[in-house]
């Protein structure tokens, strides 16, 4: 390219430095008596400056300005425009810039919105957020500058890893980052509350929407990642207990606990210090997750080539921010008023149990994720901890949580249940029995799988119960809770069924040959070449039939991309009875035979439906205790009880 491009990248670089200055003002101003009012404008300025820097980088990607090193390393003129743009964050520097952008925009939002807890409190919260921003901006500018130029500029880029040229993965990082940043805001609000020495129901009410939003986005982000792994990697699975997956799961577990404990604080004024501790812990684990993903300290199937020196910077940032926050918590928490008392079998009692189970899960995942690192440090031995450990330790707790999720929303606040309460549990109990028996009839082999079916049946029916026989219109909160819990029940059913009832076949076939699996006949009809915009592929055509009647046609591919040169496996997936028929094609080996790995994945769609319902439920619940009504007249949305089997 001979045309001289304007110095947009330098302007972006400058904007980042100015944003760092604004972040420092934002971080310092609230602690000074007269400068306090500067925090909000500084946050707004920082938001706009980082947005400017991001737009500058986006422009460089869009016009393929290969004098910018990052663009050369990750883009190509022939790449589809969508992936030129998503290529901005499909690399270390760009994804850190996206992270900072979302944080800065959250600060901008906080600065522009009304301050329910007063301007001084808002300034302090912005101050804490400013410290986080400043740390990451410094990391970007000093250790991962996205605007570095190369001289002379190459005429063509190296292209983007084909696995990342995919809609599922394109939107996985931004979704997850919105979730992380929501937790940063909750963290900032928590530290500000600690410094003020006062935690009230009002604080909980102001913070809960951020936590609910963060949780919804984390849920969606994790589900997008699992979905991508499922259809793109061609391994037939959706969760591998990989360190990078755990890095996202751990903040989600804490966010789940926080989302529930903050309800106790909001309604009963209890658990103030506990809730603040969870807010700090959620942030700490988001930071730990960023460190694990970006430093490459843990061997992971997701590991990319990374620079370990960056890990040190992140580790110092992690230790400084979370260490400082926990210190503030330890110093200030004893002065915060004690929470209200409550009964053991009340709603709040069940929420405490929920929190304890979630923390136990967190502890197990954390130990399993960091153990390899610790063992190598101590003895030099290299170990990998995978599904055998995590499945054996976490699944029983997940089942316990599912049972608790069914009961909790039926319990009353403040008091133990009335004597007739147990009768309300008959319908979910019957459903649990029915689901367990159906599972057995379908061929479940293990006790854990049968219990998984039973727990799913229990939870699905129990989550609808709060609306049965009630004339009052539900609050957004109750409705959102029910939707999210229903989603969790469906996801549990999908996860159990797709795993325990899965059928698979690994075969080597000539064209025209067939095989049978799980009551289906599969025939390799043809293998031929196909071509896409930047790839060529061999595509197999598999005809699937049942009792002679055609069911589906699957077309798995073995693809070869040109820039960068790389081979990928594209699974052939067709939905069937709420699940998937899933096939992967092996590479040609010159023998005239084709290797095919074929799976039947029953009910796997429920997993994705469940995740979307969970996120939707959280969004609905953020509406709070308002009752639903059409504007103008108070007409209930749900006027008739939902029909359920007779008791």
């Amino acid at each position, binding site marked *: 390219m001979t045309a001289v491009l304007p110095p947009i990248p330098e302007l972006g670089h400058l904007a980042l430095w100015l944003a760092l200055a604004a972040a420092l003002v934002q971080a310092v101003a609230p602690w000074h008596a007269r400068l306090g009012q500067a925090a909000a404008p500084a946050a707004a300025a920082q938001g706009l400056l980082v947005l400017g820097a991001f737009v500058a980088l986006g422009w460089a990607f869009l016009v393929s300005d290969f004098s910018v090193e990052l663009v050369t390393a990750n883009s190509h003129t022939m790449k589809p425009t969508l992936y030129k743009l998503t290529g901005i964050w499909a690399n270390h520097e760009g994804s850190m810039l996206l992270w900072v952008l979302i944080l800065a925009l959250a600060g901008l939002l906080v600065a522009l919105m009304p301050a329910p807890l007063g301007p001084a409190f808002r300034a302090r919260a912005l101050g804490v957020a400013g410290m986080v921003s400043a740390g990451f901006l410094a990391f970007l500018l000093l250790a991962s500058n996205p605007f570095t130029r190369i001289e002379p500029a190459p005429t063509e880029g190296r292209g983007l*890893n084909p696995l990342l040229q995919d809609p599922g993965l394109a939107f996985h990082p931004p979704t997850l980052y919105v979730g992380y940043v929501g937790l940063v805001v909750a963290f900032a609000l928590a530290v500000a509350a600690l410094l003020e020495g006062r935690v009230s129901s009002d604080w909980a009410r102001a913070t809960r929407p951020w936590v609910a939003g963060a949780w919804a986005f984390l849920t969606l982000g994790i589900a997008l990642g699992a979905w991508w792994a499922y259809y793109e*990697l*061609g*391994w037939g699975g959706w969760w591998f207990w990989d360190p990078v997956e755990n890095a996202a799961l751990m903040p989600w577990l804490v966010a789940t606990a926080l989302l529930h404990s903050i309800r106790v604080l909001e309604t009963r004024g209890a*658990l103030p210090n*506990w809730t603040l501790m969870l807010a700090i812990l959620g942030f700490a684990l988001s930071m730990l997750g960023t460190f694990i993903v970006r430093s*490459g300290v843990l*061997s992971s*199937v*997701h*590991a*990319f*080539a990374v620079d370990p020196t960056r890990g040190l910077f992140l580790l110092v940032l992690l230790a400084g921010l979370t260490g400082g926050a926990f210190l503030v918590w330890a110093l200030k928490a004893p002065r915060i008023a*004690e*929470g*209200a*008392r*409550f*009964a053991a079998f009340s709603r709040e009692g069940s929420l*405490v149990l929920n*929190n*304890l*189970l979630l*923390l*136990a*899960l*967190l*502890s*197990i995942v*954390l*130990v*399993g994720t960091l*153990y390899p690192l610790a063992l190598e440090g101590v003895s030099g*031995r*290299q*170990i*990998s*901890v*995978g599904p*055998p*450990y995590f499945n*054996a*330790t976490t699944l029983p*707790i997940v089942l316990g949580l599912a049972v608790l999720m069914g009961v909790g929303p039926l319990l009353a606040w403040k008091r133990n249940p009335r004597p007739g309460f147990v009768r309300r549990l008959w319908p979910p109990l019957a459903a649990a029995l029915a689901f367990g028996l159906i599972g057995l009839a379908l061929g479940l082999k293990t006790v854990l799988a049968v219990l998984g079916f039973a727990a799913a049946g229990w939870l699905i029916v129990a989550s609808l119960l709060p609306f049965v026989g009630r004339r009052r219109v539900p609050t957004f909160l109750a409705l959102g809770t029910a939707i999210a819990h229903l989603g969790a029940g469906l996801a549990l059913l999908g996860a159990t069924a797709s795993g325990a009832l899965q059928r698979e076949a*690994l*075969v*080597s076939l000539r064209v025209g040959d067939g095989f049978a699996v799980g009551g289906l006949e599969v025939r390799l009809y043809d293998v031929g070449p196909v071509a896409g915009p930047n790839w060529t592929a061999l595509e197999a055509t598999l005809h699937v039939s049942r009792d002679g009647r055609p069911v589906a046609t699957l077309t798995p591919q073995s693809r070869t991309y040109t820039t*960068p040169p*790389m*081979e990928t*496996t594209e699974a052939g997936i067709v939905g069937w009875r709420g699940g998937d028929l899933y096939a*992967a*094609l*092996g*590479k040609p*080996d010159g*023998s005239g*035979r084709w*290797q095919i*790995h074929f799976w039947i994945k029953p009910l796997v769609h429920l997993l994705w439906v469940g995740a979307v319902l969970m996120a939707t439920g959280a969004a609905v619940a953020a509406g709070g205790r308002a009752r639903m009504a059409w504007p103008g007249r108070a007409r209930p949305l749900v006027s008739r009880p939902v029909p359920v089997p007779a008791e």
Partner: protein
Amino acid sequence: MAGKLAPRHQRLVLAGSAAFALVGAGLLALPALEDKGTFFYAPSDLVRKRPPAGERIRLGGLVKPGSVFRQDDGLTLAFVVTDGSQETHVRYTGLVPDLFREGQGVVATGRLLPDGRFQAEELLAKHDENYMPPEVAKSLRPTGSPAS
């Protein structure tokens, strides 16, 4: 817990159960770690200290050029993993990962058979051309083989 506790006691009970949930779960998990974790071995490690028969381990090194063969069933792959000084014969039944190449790094999870061969259940698929599994990079360094 019968009735309601005084706030101070309630706080103690809560803190105690939280500590129990965190520490207890962690402690319960530790034996499972020893039991279910898979240790990493380079071919030289297998010679020096053989793992117990039947234990699930991970074997890593470079795929020896010219050693990759497909057996008659059309599904089983046989190849040799080397770390520069020792070699291990590996068998694997299944689809081969996209980035499996002669001369490239590989990590196989599976079990050592009595005859000294390695039966792999999984081959690590890499996401990135420039990426070398860290264990492989480390196990190669002492022998002086190129490990980028």
